[in-house]
């Protein structure tokens, strides 16, 4: 800045101030517009800087979070694919096991039926055995009775014909009953 450019208090070329300030209050009022403009500028700069910093931080944060989500998404996809493969393999194995179980259950049903049938056969055989023992006892008594009758007939002089005939009828009736029981056991 040169000496010619320095402002002076005299001369008609100086347009400001047109009226001298009567006191200090007037002097201050004259300086306010310049200070207010700088303040707004500073404020705008501060706000702009803060905005830039904030946006940078926000962008950085969002980018970081985005990267983390992308990474975890990939991780979860990999895990889901692996689990899906495992589930598919497990389901296939389960189907095989189920098929084996169905087959085994069917075999078990057959085995149960066979056991039931064998137990029944055993029981029926036991019944038949006991019935045959009973019939055998009856046949033995029949044979003994007939032997007694023969002995009596051999000594018929000691017995009346009526008593011998009655004895024969009784023995025959008993033996017929035993034979019927035998037929029932054998023929069912």
């Amino acid at each position, binding site marked *: 800045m040169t000496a010619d450019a320095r402002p002076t208090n005299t001369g008609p070329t100086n347009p400001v101030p047109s009226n001298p300030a009567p006191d200090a209050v007037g002097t201050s009022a004259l300086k*306010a517009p310049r*200070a*207010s403009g*700088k*303040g*707004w500028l*500073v*404020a*705008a700069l*501060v*706000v702009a800087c*803060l*905005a830039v910093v*904030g946006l940078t931080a*926000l962008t950085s*944060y*969002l980018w*970081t*979070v985005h990267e*983390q*989500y992308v990474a*975890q998404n990939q*991780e*979860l996809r990999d*895990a889901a694919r692996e689990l899906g493969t495992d589930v598919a393999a497990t389901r296939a194995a389960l189907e095989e096991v189920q098929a084996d179980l169905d087959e085994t*259950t069917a075999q*078990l*049903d057959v*085995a*149960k039926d066979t*056991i*039931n*049938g*064998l*137990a*029944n056969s*055993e*029981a*029926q055989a*036991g*019944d038949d055995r*006991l*019935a045959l023992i*009973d019939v055998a006892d009856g046949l033995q008594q029949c044979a003994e009775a007939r032997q007694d009758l023969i002995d009596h007939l051999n000594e018929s002089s000691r017995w009346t014909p009526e008593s011998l005939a009655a004895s024969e009828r009784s023995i025959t009736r008993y033996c017929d009953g035993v034979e019927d029981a035998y037929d029932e056991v054998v023929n069912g």
Partner: protein
Amino acid sequence: MTRVPAAAGFGVALVLALTGCGILPAAPSPAPTDFVPSPSQSPGEMTGALSPDGFSAAQRMSVRVRNIGCGFLATGSGFALDEHTLVTNKHVVDNAKIIEVSTYDGRVIQATAASTTTIADIAIVTTEEPLGTSYASRAEADPAEGDVITIVGYPSGGRLTTTSGVVLGTTTDPLAAAAGSVLASTAIVEPGSSGSAVFNAAGEVVGVVYAKNNSEQSFIVPISTLNALLDEPSLLVPDTEGCSS
């Protein structure tokens, strides 16, 4: 006055920052790595679960009773109360010289003693050899009218058979031999079914089959009568072996 815009700008930035944090997405939480399966139903608890040998508990506790009398042979059914005790009907073991018991798997066991009562067609038979591993769980109360019942026994002395029916209600003993009331049901039984256990839906014994009529209705000694007999042993009289006539 110069501080006002700066303060306002700072305030706006602060408000934006604070409110912005509230709507910003949070970082992802760690992916789960410890997958613990929720417990599934045990195969042993599933419907149709297999028993050790494929037979149900009701089938395993059921026995075929053979009464070898003097000049006759009769069969009936029964069920195990415990390892050496079974329940059957009094008329199944009447006039027995020998009582034999056959299990579902074909084992034949000799009975050692039998006790009967006059208040119901019930007999308690004991054995020396163990009857098996499955025993009756007795219900506390009698079945109600309309309840579904299952009967397991040896009709006609044949194969182990399971039949189902519905309780028709209580009635008086059609044979006029038992004290108190009995139950009638639609389950079809045959001679030889006498002494069969009657099960409810829970698998508990709720009665003992003892008779049928021409309308294909079966008659059942209710579990309350059996429970009363077992709670009062003095009501049971030992049966003497041998033939009454």
